[in-house]
């Protein structure tokens, strides 16, 4: 059953110099537990598609379904709730809150989802252990390496047990060796049943996906 289903979606950005078409009639479905990688040159629309699938943006044409529900018909608050409980985000620049420790960063989405404090702490310990950072729980992001920050970001994305993990260039800021560790972590996440949609320039990371798609000029080409 498709977790996400995009049908002929398009995204046009109105610009002062005239509208910019970022996506043209893209159709994509991601099944529960699937691992999909999207590659393509810069500016081809990969991140735009990821943002649509991750429900942080809405298409200007076509339809997008998440869990068989039309995203277009959801209010901003409902989309927020959907992202909180069903989708996990991993960013190229990690975007951890610098004033919170690794554990607190992981706890934050759980607090928003009103998970009881005791369960939150247990889940956070479990996740930091899962990403190999149990001993760095109390460290601030500034005390962590890039790879460690990205692992905390992955733990944070998994905090509310999402069905889909979307990652935008997750190894973009990391060296090859660290990127390899992160890629291995994505494999593990997927093996444990979470669907993964990753947008990347990194061929080694893309190669690990069960389905690889390429984009060019706002279209899926294979």
């Amino acid at each position, binding site marked *: 059953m498709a977790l996400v289903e995009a049908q002929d979606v398009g995204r046009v950005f109105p610009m002062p110099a005239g509208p910019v078409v970022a996506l043209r009639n893209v159709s994509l479905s991601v099944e529960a537990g699937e691992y999909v990688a999207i590659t393509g040159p810069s500016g081809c629309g990969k991140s735009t598609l990821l943002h649509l699938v991750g429900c942080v*943006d809405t298409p200007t044409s076509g339809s997008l379904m998440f869990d068989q529900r039309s995203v277009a018909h959801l209010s901003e608050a409902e989309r*927020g709730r959907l992202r*909180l409980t069903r989708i996990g985000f991993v960013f190229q620049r990690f975007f951890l809150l610098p004033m919170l420790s690794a554990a607190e960063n992981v706890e934050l989405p759980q607090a928003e989802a009103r998970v009881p404090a005791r369960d939150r702490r247990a889940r956070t310990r479990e996740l930091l252990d899962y990403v190999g950072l149990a001993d760095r729980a109390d460290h601030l992001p500034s005390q962590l390496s890039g790879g460690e920050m990205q692992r905390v970001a992955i733990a944070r994305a998994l905090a509310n047990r999402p069905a889909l993990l979307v990652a935008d260039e997750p190894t973009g800021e990391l060296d090859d060796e660290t990127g390899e560790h992160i890629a291995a972590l994505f494999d593990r996440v997927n093996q444990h049943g979470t669907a993964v949609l990753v947008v990347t320039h990194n061929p080694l990371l893309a190669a690990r996906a069960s389905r690889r798609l390429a984009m060019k000029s706002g279209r899926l080409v294979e």
Partner: protein
Amino acid sequence: MTSFALAWRTAQRYRARTMLAIAGVAVIGALLFDMLLLSRGLLLSFADLLDSSGFDLRVVSTEGLAARLPIAGSARLAGDIRQIPDVQHVLMIRIEPATARTADGPSRGISLVGSSDTDEHVWRVLQGTDLRSPAAAGERCPALVTRPLAVALALTPGARLTINARPPGVASALPAVVCRVVGIAEFAFAPTDDLTAVTTLEAFGNAIGNAGPTDADLVLVSSRPDAAPGGILRAIAGLRPDLRVYSNEEVVSQFNRNGFAYFRQISLVLSSLTMVFAFLLVATLLTVSINQRLGEIAALRALGIGRTRIASMLLWESALLVGAGGLLALPLGEALALVLDRILRQMPGIPERMHFFVFEPRAVAIHVTLLGVTALAAAVYPIWLTARLPIAETLRREVLG
């Protein structure tokens, strides 16, 4: 992790910004607090002064208390007032400009006060004795003088003072009277530089050439501690409908309308300005801070952190900055008020016991309320910015940036 905790951590994380904002709000808040103290300081001080004199009612022949005319038959009136139940004490006062000199010294323009009785509430003897003391009993014209007059004419108790009941430079056929200084006193309503001599109403009458009883231009009435002065006021008005009787509250309200309106207006304008400055400072710092954290905030939104939590975090941030600054503003404002009060009280014509800045809990409550409103208003624009933040576009821009 509550919104407050997030705000607290943010304040700790961006320490320089936090310290700058707190210091700015503390300085601005101190000015605001001082303006609040100033807006009612004189009024409170004046009311306190009136109350401390022990008199509840003031009887005069004209509208207002500033320019007064003698009350015809004031001695009889005073007698009638004493018969009113609940009246404790009646004091008759008459004030005229006069000239005073010592035998071998220069002459000075003074205020000559005739008083029907001595009253420690109206003055306090600092040196020597009071007008009706046994030591002064044999004197035809015993006089109490203010400290500035004692200094100006080098007077000590026992000195002779020649008084002409006419202003300086005005020719008069009235003979001078020679008074004996029995004491040096501090007068509740006298300015710090006031040159005043007080004598008995009889001696005053002699000085102004009155053969008979001297009419007072002010009759002060005090009620018994357990009595309300309202009934006495009505009774006096019934006795003499041609006179005006003022309660302390009416005197204060009259001064509030006329004498203190400038201070109120100035403090209103300046406190409004300080609030605007506080608003601009906090709103600017929060806005700059938000612009530096747009990526973080867009990421939080992408993770499903609601607008409400982010808005309440910003509100707490604003409240923390303004709250800490506002708290520091209280001792800072109090210290500044002491300095400013000392400077302003050096103005001529200000009674020694009057203050421009008077602390009252109400000022703290208004200070807290106004700063609370400022904190709320300062957070509105940053909250609006984050609420309307386009998540996808911001994330894209942050990566490209």
